[in-house]
């Protein structure tokens, strides 16, 4: 009973104790559960981690070996490629060297020869220099010639003037205008005047040549043709009165060269000397003087017997050459033969030559 009492006494507390004990268990159950879970999870995690670690190690080993194997394969290829490229680059570099040398050689030899170009330009510049010098000399020569000609012209002009002004020379009594007594020394013109030969008034130069024929006369008259600049009409000529022709025309007319007419140009006895000349030529040429008769006239030697009816006192023999007066000196009146004269036709002798301008050639 005691126990029952105790139990009953405790029964009140039993529920509570039961409750509390259960709840205590519950109170810690969660915590303990959590703790157990935690421990378990931790342990499981460690387990798993160890497993994973183990797996990792194994996988790493596998991968390591696998990758090593793969890379060794790649490495082979890479080495081949690198070797290949190295060799190709070497070849390329060598080829570039060769090409460089070759191209330099080719350009220098065939396309563009630098030294030849330099030489050519030097030659061109030398040629230019020579040409410039030559042209300069040429220009200088031309200039000096011109200057010389100019000086000579001036000198000649001054000499002419001095000749014309010769009367201004000073004499012993009267000093000339260029020799003023107030000067220390005479003017250079004075010296020039002293040196100059005075101009002589132009006289017709009479040439006393014996003119044999007309041709010589013509040759003489060319000297008397229209006077050139040297001669002027004399100063002290008395001035004539009246309207005058142009002096040049007059002088031209006056000093016209001789234009002989046809009548005068040929000698009138031209025939005789011509005949004589021809005979002289024939005499020189011919071997014998006797006429060489052809054989056909051999039979003509017999004398002709004229008939009674046709005979006259005029012998036919008189028709031959010896009957002519000119061939037969016996017939001449004086001791000379007559002259054969051919006068020319005097129709146009005055045409274009008279003083008036009628029909004159302008």
């Amino acid at each position, binding site marked *: 009973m005691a126990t029952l009492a105790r139990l009953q006494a405790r029964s009140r507390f039993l529920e509570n104790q039961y409750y509390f004990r259960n709840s205590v268990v519950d109170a810690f159950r969660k915590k303990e559960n959590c703790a157990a879970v935690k421990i378990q999870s931790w342990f499981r995690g460690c387990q798993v981690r160890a497993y994973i670690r183990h797996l990792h190690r194994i996988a790493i080993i596998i991968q390591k070996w696998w990758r090593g194997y793969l890379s060794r394969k790649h490495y082979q290829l890479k080495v081949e490629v690198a070797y290949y490229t190295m060799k190709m680059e070497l070849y390329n570099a060598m080829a570039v060297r060769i090409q460089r040398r070759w191209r330099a050689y080719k350009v220098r030899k065939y396309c563009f020869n630098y030294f030849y170009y330099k030489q050519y*330009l030097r030659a061109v510049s030398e040629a*230019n220099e020579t040409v*410039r010098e030559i042209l300069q000399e040429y*220009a200088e020569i031309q200039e000096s010639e011109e200057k010389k000609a100019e000086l000579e012209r001036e000198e000649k002009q001054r000499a002419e003037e001095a000749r014309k002004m010769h009367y201004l020379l000073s004499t012993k009594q009267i000093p000339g205008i260029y020799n003023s007594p107030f000067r220390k020394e005479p003017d250079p013109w004075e010296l020039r005047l002293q040196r100059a030969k005075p101009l002589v008034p132009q006289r017709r130069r009479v040439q006393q040549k014996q003119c044999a024929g007309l041709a010589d006369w013509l040759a003489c008259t060319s000297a008397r043709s229209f006077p050139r600049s040297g001669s002027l009409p004399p100063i002290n000529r008395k001035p004539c009165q009246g309207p005058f022709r142009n002096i040049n025309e007059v002088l031209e007319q006056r000093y016209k060269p001789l234009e002989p007419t046809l009548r005068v140009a040929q000698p009138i006895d031209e025939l005789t000397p011509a005949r004589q000349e021809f005979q002289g030529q024939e005499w020189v040429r011919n071997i014998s003087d006797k006429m060489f008769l052809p054989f056909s006239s051999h039979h003509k030697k017999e004398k002709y017997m004229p008939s009674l009816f046709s005979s006259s006192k005029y012998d036919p023999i008189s028709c031959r050459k010896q009957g002519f007066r000119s061939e037969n000196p016996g017939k001449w009146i004086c001791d000379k033969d007559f002259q054969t004269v051919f006068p020319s036709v005097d129709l146009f002798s005055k045409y274009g030559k008279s003083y008036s301008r009628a029909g004159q050639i*302008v």
Partner: protein
Amino acid sequence: MSQRQVLQGLEEYRKARLQFVQRVAEQATRPQNLETLQSAGVISLLRPLLLDVVPTIQQTAALALGRLANYSDDLAEAVVKGDILPQLVYSLAEQNRFYKKAAAFVLRAVGKHSPQRAQAIVDCGALDALVICLEDFDPGVKEAAAWALGCTSRHNAELSQAVVDAGAVPLLVLCIQEPEIALKRIAALALSDISKHSPELAQTVVDAGAIAHLAQMILNPDAKLKHQVLSALGQIAKHSVDLAEMVVEAEIFPVVLTCLKDKDEYVKKSACTLIREIAKHTPELSQLVVNAGGVASVTDCIGSCRGNTRLPGIMMLGYVAAHSENLAMAVIISKGVPQLSVCLSEEPEDHVKAAAAWALGQIGRHTSEHARAVTHTLPVLLSLYMSTESSEDLQMKCKKAIKGILPKCTYLPALEPFLYGAPPNILKHVLGQFSKVLPHDSKARRLFVTSGGLKKVQEIQADPGSLLQEYINSINNCYPEEVVRNA
């Protein structure tokens, strides 16, 4: 007696005619009388006098008509309309030398004004008569006939062809060989006028053997003759390479170079023209000219001339330099570039400046050495291009020259002034050149920065994506960032 009276009347009439015609001829020498003479209808009065019995009257009438026709085109037209030319041609064949001279003078006076008058002369058959006159003994007649033929053939190619068809060319070549200087001059002028129109006509002249005689006459001291001969040779040589080679084969070099030192301006000009016509055809001919020292003498000749006489010499240098870079270098070492730059700056005329600009462009466009030799003229070219007073032709030629020189120019200090004043189209090329050279040359880069060029480049506005912007970028890429920023 009535006979004497009749004769006296006729004599008075003859005197009156002579006096009239002499007076008209004298008055025709003064220009102020010519208008009144024409309005008075003197041409129709002179026409019957051409057929007068008295030779003096005929000649004086022809002389008067010639002087009238010489004065102006209207009078020449009146002479043509007055139906005078057939009379002249008809009597040209049979009269004496004075009349022939006067008639040839009339034909020349009519033919020189315009192609229509010259055609009128050809149509009335005067060419045959003139060619017959060329065979005359008197040199005065030959001269007048040759001058008339020259004046006729001057205008165009058909008239020249007509003159050639009349058979004038061999006779003109004979006239050249005559001793009289005036005749030689006129014959050379006539040949020059004939051969200037077309290659066929020039070939005809050459076939008659003119070149050898013309080449001999270059040494003649008479200045006018030299001028005509050189211009004739130039007209022949200008048409084709074969003709130019034939002229060269006549051994005119180096004799022609002495003509470049002559005192007379026209001789110098025509000698330069001849050398230019020869040099412009092929590089070989230019080479020949250069080897004979032609470039140096032409350069000196340019220096001694002024104005229009310089123009053929400048063009000759341009043609020679245009053929190849060796020849351009030959021009440079003959001191051609200073002379051309003097011409460019000094000459008042625009066309001479344009020619000088073109020549400089031809010299400088080959390689960088050539461009280096020409760089000092670039500012002048730029200023001429920009100036509003220059003619269009001058501006165009300056622009082409600059555009030709710039791509080859590697001397950067000369290009820097261009950054400041140039228009955009030229600036593009300048910057392109900078962008090409700067990446490779460190000294130039330093110089570019110190001279302030980089700063200027930054200031340039450019459309993004345009060529200008690309060039600016490539220039900026040559320098580190801070340098660009500070600049």
